[in-house]
């Protein structure tokens, strides 16, 4: 439920990456939206941190990112997270917002494409930057 309309939101989720195994991790984000509210994601931020909490996107960035809104992936395919992390802002704005309706689970999946030769663990932080608002009818 929003406390103001619209209400800015930054949903952050962290993934602990085991560098010894190529695989995927999925986290669920709870938007706590009412039935008459929708959440729109305008931008995505990615940080890749090493075990000391230091940005390591320059030396380990081979990750793909997938966002599921409800039963569908939006964007429809996995996309490169490394380029976002290497960006100075660490953020990429979407061409148009991802719309998450009531009761649509919001999930973020990180696929590790290659291993790192440097010992981990690594933490990949994904931020979904958007707003929750009451649907205007």
């Amino acid at each position, binding site marked *: 439920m929003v406390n103001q309309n619209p209400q800015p939101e930054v949903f952050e989720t962290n993934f602990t990456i085991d560098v010894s195994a190529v695989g995927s991790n999925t986290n669920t984000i709870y938007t706590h939206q009412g039935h008459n509210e929708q959440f729109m994601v305008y931008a995505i931020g990615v940080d890749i941190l090493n075990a000391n909490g230091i940005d390591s996107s320059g030396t380990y960035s081979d990750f793909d990112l997938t966002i599921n809104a409800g039963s569908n992936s*939006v964007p429809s395919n996995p996309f*490169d997270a490394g380029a976002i992390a290497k960006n100075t802002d660490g953020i*990429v704005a979407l061409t148009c917002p991802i719309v998450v309706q009531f009761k649509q689970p919001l999930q973020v999946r990180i696929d590790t494409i290659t291993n790192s030769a440097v010992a981990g663990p690594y933490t990949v932080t994904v931020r979904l930057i958007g707003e929750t608002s009451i649907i205007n009818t």
Partner: protein
Amino acid sequence: MANQNPQPEIYTTRHEFANGATPGTSITETVFTNQSSSEEVRIYSISVNIINNTANEAGTGSSITGNDYTAQIKIGNNFVPSYAFDLGVITTMNQVMITFPTPILVLFQQPISVIVTYKGGNSSRQAGANTGVATAVKVSLHAELALTQVACQEGSMDWPSGQKNARQDMIDAISNKIMGGA
């Protein structure tokens, strides 16, 4: 098929160059947009991530040979932009991304191919060095998938708006004849 209208899309292709790839080696990857007949894709910008040594990613963009790649984007049967452009300069930008002045338009049943070519780190484009390590070039096309918008005027015969059909041309010709026009 879009799940929402418009729907943001980021299409990433991965081009893997083996250790020792010679200058001129190109790798083509195809993007599947899964769009229907009533949908179109518009590509607004492109970002690049060069993973220089996939076994131990380090030194990305630190050497000329490490980021001397070009890309061509083929939409349907045509290249858009018309010519190959440098990817290395994109990786050295703060945003790791360039935005096109106008979007690339992809219509139904038009395949997208991304062709990445290793140039060898020689500005004269003659024989340069082979790749020193296995390298992956990831190209992301930032786009949106939307239902095609058609401009209509209710009750008008020139549909879509501004494009007269043959019947309207015939009516105009007869009308001009009767009224003594041109």
